[in-house]
């Protein structure tokens, strides 16, 4: 279970990096991903493998950072006519509060509960896709450590992951991915959004399954 949590953490990290502004350093790290992960055939056991493979192919063929940066700005940053494919949860649903600020406040409370605060570099709002994915990566990392100590804490973390996926990522990432497929977007962003959607949906199923098994064992 520890190894699986670590693997999930690595995938969340990678997906989060993909949807941050593509600096030269970030681009260099992303290009390395297919070389490092190609031999990891164990991922073929999961249904997100086919979209994941398409993402790896797109990463291996990543355009220059200036091209990528232009594309990032064109797609994900708000222009005078709004954002083409807003990578913000509040653009798709605002939760129970009904407003973007309420949703961001709720998310910040959630992050603060596990001792996290928003970073200034990069400075993104709490409902940005990369921030939510990073938070999931953090929870998976904590879960991996918890499995070494026993099952009670890990079980609680699984529940936290399940709630976060259910209440946030699963509710808007599919729509975000669809909006990106409709655009003439760079292959890496289209493949990235499709892989992100598949991974998030699959991860919720897995977390639910593991939670159920742990509950039954208890």
């Amino acid at each position, binding site marked *: *279970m*520890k*190894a*699986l949590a670590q*693997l999930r953490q690595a995938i969340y990290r990678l997906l989060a990096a993909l949807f941050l502004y593509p600096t030269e350093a970030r681009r260099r790290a992303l290009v390395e991903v297919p070389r490092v992960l190609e031999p990891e*055939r*164990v991922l*073929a*056991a999961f*249904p*997100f*493998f*086919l979209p994941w*493979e398409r993402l790896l192919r797109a990463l291996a063929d990543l355009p220059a950072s200036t091209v990528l940066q232009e594309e990032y700005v064109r797609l994900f940053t708000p222009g005078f006519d709004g954002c083409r494919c807003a990578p913000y949860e509040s653009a798709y649903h605002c939760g129970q509060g009904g407003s973007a600020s309420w949703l961001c406040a709720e998310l910040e409370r959630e992050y603060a509960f596990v001792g996290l605060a928003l970073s200034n570099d990069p400075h993104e709002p709490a409902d940005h896709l990369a921030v939510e994915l990073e938070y999931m990566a953090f929870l998976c990392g904590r879960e991996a450590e918890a499995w070494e100590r026993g099952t009670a804490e890990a079980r609680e973390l699984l529940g936290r992951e399940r709630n976060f996926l259910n209440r946030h990522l699963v509710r808007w990432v599919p729509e975000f991915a669809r909006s990106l497929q409709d655009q003439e977007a760079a292959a890496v962003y289209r493949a990235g959004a499709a892989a992100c*959607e*598949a991974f998030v*949906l*699959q991860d919720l*199923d*897995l977390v*639910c*399954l593991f939670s*159920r*098994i742990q509950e039954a064992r208890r």
Partner: protein
Amino acid sequence: MTAQPAAVLICADVARASRVNLTAVEAWLQRTDPHAVVRVAAGLCEGRGDLESVLARDGAGRAVLGLCGDGYDERELQSQLRQAGIDPLSASAVRLGRWCAGLPPEAATEKAKVMLAAAVAAARASGGSTVANAKPYFPARGSRRSFLRFPVPAYRVVPSVDGSRCAASAGCSLCVEACPFGALSVADGRIELDKDGCEGCGRCVSACPREAFHFPGYNPKEVEARVRVLLDPEVSAIQPRGILFVCACASPLPFLEAGWMPVELPCAAMLPAHWLLAPLLLGAVAVGVVPCERQGSTGCGPAVLQKVDFCQALLRRAGRPAELVRSHPPAEQPPGMELPEPLPRANGEVRFQLRPEAVAAVLLRFVGHGGTSAWEHPGCPLGLVEINPATCTGCGMCATACPSEALQYGEADGEAWVRFDPARCTACGLCVSRCPEQARGAIHVSRRLDPESLRAGSGQLLRTPLRRCVACGAPVAPALMLNRVLELLGEDGIQLQRVLTQYCPSCRPLWGAREEARRG
């Protein structure tokens, strides 16, 4: 149109489990379907097939698995297919070892050919699967992968909902009612599937008149493609042929004579009545169904028997032997051996779609042969709506609720009307439950097949003049509805009567202000 490349992977142990000549099958498939990549792999069912090197990533997007037994190592095989670039959940598995066992070598080989060709057609008709169709579980059977660092689940296919087709936002919950496991619910006007609870029986799929569910392997297109090839006289010389729908939970499975072509379903209760009849128009001499023996709401026996009974009643009315469709037919005999010639083929006009229009088209092919009077049956997949003009107020709520648009409400030329198309009605009863005047019997629906009205098509059920606003001339409401409002208000509220019946909603506040001013 070029056929999509498909990989046909046959377990070498099929030859041991039955007397199928695999070399002949492989050569025949390769010859008749140049776009199929056919491979016989040793140890396929045990996950020792090493499919990535067998297929060498030749671009086959779909796969057909010819299995030697009832089960296989799902985890390993799914993983290998993904590595070969193939979507494993839309792969079509054929239990050759099971269905060809006990047959003489020639018949077994011939049957294996037909079944594999049909599975290829079904796989090509598949729209593929998404993660939404994948439900993880841990199989009881061990895996070669169990030595891995972490637990690897296998995945089974479950239906997914296409929100753009779903009518849940209009109040439809037919799928929720059809699910025996309580896995579906309506939240915020959307259908939500709880994968934990879903057993993949597919009853929701056939309950939806808008075909809003996607169920890889069992979508109407896939089943139709499979059945058409299973009955195609050009594919095989086996005659006569019958179609046998088999519930995946049915046990023990019958021994099948060569002419019975099995179509496995996750649950026989998902079988719509017209799927039992359509094969008869495609060349089948008989159609059978083998439900499971499970008891209670999750068992499919009673639901299947009701549909079979409806089909038999329809056949009798059409002057045909009722035994053309049977539950538990004698599968050890050639299908329909005691029956006369099959019905004339009607290839182009037969569709397995779940939309009521497609159901009506199949049923009409049968009633065309004989009895034309309307008749009622609890298993009838179509219905008839009747409106009582004495109590109906013409509010149009029934049309808003109707998920298949059999009822339509409109306003034109100073009149409001309700039209009804019997070829679109599934007798779901949502119109009755939504009717505000249901207690007074304003609307009635019955599971009745009326060939005459089906042929006549859409007709008007109600027509009532629209009252117009005395201030702006815009429509206020149907006269029948306003009459009913007046009746309910009685002698009280003369002012209210006036405002409701004479002014449209936009002018009412204005009218109120004027009245106040006048009084003041």
